[in-house]
């Protein structure tokens, strides 16, 4: 435990967390920690993801996303050792942060995670990666190409909400596609057209139609 070395800002919040007696007071304590936006709180927020307290986990994910960059490596390093429920929350945090270093994990989760809520968040995250944070244009092109391939694949997911996330991802990606990938753009548009005409869910058809309008 690193409790003894916590800053004067964090310490009282940690005390509140450790004395929380109910799921609700625990959630309130986590919300306070998240609101403080202290990067030194990253380890404790990550620990909360494993508490099996959904309200607290939502607050912790929000906190990790707000803190942003300092959360990324601890999340990636810890993902392997996590229990299943905590993995899902950690992936959602990574998806929300959009850091380039999360791309491999997000791509994998979007395609093959067992839980549809994780595939949904990961697909959304793949489309909304912070492309300007890739260090070189070459890296960015490779990453976008991988993201495009992934999202087109996810458009075949059996769950409507995962396909919906993929469509929003394709729209976001279509707006920032690098010029080197100009030849790939028709694939993206064609996939959206197929969804707009033939997806079994009318909501998906509408969302794909909206994406096409916005990319026109």
């Amino acid at each position, binding site marked *: 435990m690193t409790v003894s070395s916590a800053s004067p800002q964090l310490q009282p919040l940690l005390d509140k967390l450790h004395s929380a007696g109910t799921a609700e007071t625990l959630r309130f304590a986590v919300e306070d920690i998240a609101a403080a936006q202290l990067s030194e709180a990253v380890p404790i927020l990550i620990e909360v993801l494993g508490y099996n307290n959904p309200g607290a986990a939502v607050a912790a994910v929000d906190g990790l996303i707000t803190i942003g960059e300092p959360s990324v490596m601890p999340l990636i390093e810890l993902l392997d050792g996590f229990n299943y429920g905590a993995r899902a929350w950690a992936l959602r945090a990574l998806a929300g942060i959009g850091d380039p270093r999360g791309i491999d994990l997000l791509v994998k989760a979007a395609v093959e995670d067992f839980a*549809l809520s994780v595939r*949904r968040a990961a697909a*959304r995250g793949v489309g909304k990666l912070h492309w300007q944070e890739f260090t070189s244009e070459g890296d960015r092109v490779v990453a976008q190409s991988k993201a495009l391939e992934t999202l087109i694949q996810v458009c075949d997911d059996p769950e409507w*909400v995962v396909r*919906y*996330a993929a469509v929003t991802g394709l729209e976001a990606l279509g707006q920032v596609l690098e010029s080197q990938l100009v030849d790939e753009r028709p694939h993206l548009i064609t996939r959206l057209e197929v969804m707009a005409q033939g997806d079994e869910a*009318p*909501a998906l058809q509408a969302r794909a139609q*909206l994406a096409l*309008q916005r990319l026109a």
Partner: protein
Amino acid sequence: MSDAAENVPAESLTLEEAIANLQQTEDPGLRYYAAWWVGRFRANQPVVIDSLVVALADELNRSPDGGYPLRRNAARALGKLGEPSVVPALLESLDCDDYYVRGAVVESLGELGDKVAIPRLLSFLDGGVEAATMMPGKPHLREPYDLILEALGSLGATEAVGQIKPFAEHSVEKVQYAAARAMYQLTGESSYGDVLVQALAAPDLQLRRAALMDIGAVGYMPGAEAIAGTLAENSLKLIALKGLLETHLRQSPDDALTSEAIHSMDLMDDLL
């Protein structure tokens, strides 16, 4: 879905096995599960429909409190299979003395959409709110009023508005909201949609969840924002907004997306 059987893997039965299980009477558990299975996997075949109608009159499968579990599952499955010819058999089952059988039948009649069921459903409202009291010794009302009201709304029973309206003042919240839902469907008056929106702030999560689904089902677009802001799981809010959007799309035959449709999709994007 509240069925415990929901988690049983689909591949555990083939269609042939399900039909055989449904037709035999040796093992009530297998028959009960098969009745659920054919509904869940939409096994819409004449032999299945016939077997379910037989199961609606089953006397063998009895619960300790005198209920008819097989009849409940058979009634639910018939609602999902969309075969209109079963409506008379379902109407007959409304005389069953198992409250939960009647509830399942009412729901299925609403799903099947045949207006011929309206007069019989309406007869449950005879006596008005005063007669809609708790069943002595049971944890429920005399009739499944919430489901009856919902079915009348889905069936477009505009002639029933006068009888439905007082139920918006019933002492049980679930019944109030069902009445509001039906009244919105039948009259399009936004005050009833607003009642459902207020239910999104109910302290009870079950009520909030029900209100989410109700607003989606009736397509009350002004509720979109409130759905997104409700204290409930994102996955549920997404389903509610999808329902809302799809009801809206059905009601606006135009090919162009309306600003309401686009707004509801923007809200959905933020919940992913």
